């Protein structure tokens, strides 16, 4: 009986999250930068600006995840371990992004010194705010959005960038590598949901956090001048 309730709430939450992701993907597709990419109008400067803008938020990713892990209580040690593993896996990813930028002919000092755009500022502030709460399970919704982006969007984007700009693999590793790395993310994500559900309030918070994260992520991409 309890198992049935859990399965139902995991499925309900996953369905709501899938709806949020679909809306997220559509909003992303309609941003000026992605429209340029889809319409074959993407230039090298667009890609470089994209990397510069993305780097600051990617660097923060492992940091808010670590902070979230530190705020997870003893009752959910397994989830804490999972987040810590995620943070370890990802905390050097921004270096890959920098290397891609350099491989396109960019100066590493430029990408390192760049400030966050308006969307990245809002997204980052939101993530750290959520991660600072006790038992910040809502952040599973944020992971759904950001990891979904990695497993569904990154590789096709990377392939399009590579083809359009005639770039070597080593200039597109961040995008291409994410696509390969996150193939099992659906199964692992459901496992994480089972660690915190059933719980009505938590389920609602996960979906709301996904929606806010999605909107702020789109703002970040919109802010990249195209």
């Amino acid at each position, binding site marked *: 009986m309890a198992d049935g309730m859990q399965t*139902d709430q995991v*499925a*309900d939450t*996953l*369905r*709501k999250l*899938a*709806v949020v*992701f*679909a*809306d997220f*993907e*559509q*909003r992303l*597709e*309609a941003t000026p930068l992605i*429209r340029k990419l*889809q*319409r*074959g109008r993407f230039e090298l400067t667009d890609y470089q600006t994209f990397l510069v803008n993305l780097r600051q938020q990617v660097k923060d990713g492992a940091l808010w995840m670590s902070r979230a892990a530190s705020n997870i209580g003893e009752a959910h040690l397994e989830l804490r371990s999972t987040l810590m593993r995620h943070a370890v896996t990802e905390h050097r990813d921004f270096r890959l992004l920098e290397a891609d930028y350099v491989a396109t002919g960019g100066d590493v000092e430029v990408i390192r010194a760049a400030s966050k755009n308006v969307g990245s500022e809002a997204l980052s502030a939101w993530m750290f705010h959520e991660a600072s709460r006790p038992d910040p399970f809502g952040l599973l919704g944020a992971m759904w959005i950001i990891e979904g982006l990695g497993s*569904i969007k990154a590789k*096709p984007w990377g392939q*399009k960038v590579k083809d359009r700009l005639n770039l070597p693999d080593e200039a597109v590793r961040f995008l291409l590598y994410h696509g390969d790395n996150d193939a099992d993310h*659906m199964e692992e994500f*459901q496992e994480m949901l089972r660690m915190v559900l059933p719980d009505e309030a938590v389920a609602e918070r996960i979906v709301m956090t996904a929606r806010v994260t999605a909107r702020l992520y789109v703002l970040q991409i919109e802010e990249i001048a195209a």
Partner: protein
Amino acid sequence: MIESDRLRDAYMTGVGAFLPGPRIGNAEMEDFIGRIGGRSSVVGRRALRWNGIEGRYYALDASGQPLHSNASMCALAAQAALDDAGLDKGALGFLAAATTQGDLLVPGHASAVQAELGAGPMEIASFQSVCASALMAAKAAWLNVRAGEADVALACAGEFSSRWFRPEFYEGTALVDAKGRPAVEADFLRFTLSDGAGAVVMEPTPRPEGRSLKVRWIDMVSLAGRFDPCMWAGAATADRADMKSAWSHAGPVAAHAAGAVALLQDFELLKIVIRAWIGVWLEKVDQGRIVPDTVDHLLCHYSAKSLREEIVGLLKDTKAMIPEEKWFSTLRESGNVGSASIWIMLDAFMKSGRARPGETVLCIVPESGRAMIGFMMLEVV
């Protein structure tokens, strides 16, 4: 807001379909649509494996001569639907016709269908889109009956795609490369779409004998504001989002040379559009508009078998899957007939004897065109 008791119920009292010529198997299909540059298609084999179609019908003979027109096929399907309902065409008060590409550019398809049917003066409406145009026409017919504007309304849909797939649409254009190979975005659809028509008659009361289908609701969601065209004709691939560069601006000769006249499909974008369709479906389930467990029969117009596999995984995990034994389809036997598919399927479904009173029949019509999906909930009475 109009109170619902002032609206009438509307029932489908007749369903009809028309498929032209003999059934054509995969081995002979290129004899009918022709071979671009005289060579068999390489892409075609792959397309057929992907979409799972084993037979289809063409309104062309083996020499490429037309056996019918789009409008005449629609008129034949309309007549079949009227016969099924036990009505004469004189009873019609409203005719809605849908198609992707009508026989003429102007005027609308419904005018041509009315003329072919030989029907007297009445109100008509033309709906031009891709597959979902069928449900646009159905919704117009349904609302006309519901509002008391018509006592007998007919919605039909037809396609004569094969005519657009003849080699002349591609040869000597930018769609064929220096080695004579057609672009994938052009060639793939030639092995996906075929010809035919279907129709339904709607009235405010069920038919006196036999089964009718009460139309509970028809919902359509278009996401055109978020996507560029995914399946289109009238622009070259690179220009398709810029309506100022549509084919008519350059004139027909230059547009043809630029590959702006043939029917094209962006397969990369299609993958994204498929996820958008799933998103709308999941939202309908989440809102309780569709309760999967209460659906007895699912008629899904999907243009490829492989779409289904992609859909199934997520649907199962989110308890939004309708079990496969409830799916009814004619795709493999009679092909993908665009807007007409849903009526061809419904006609075969009603003739199969599967429909039992009280059961629900959900029709789903996704359209890649510029990202749209339609749903129609029917109840067997």
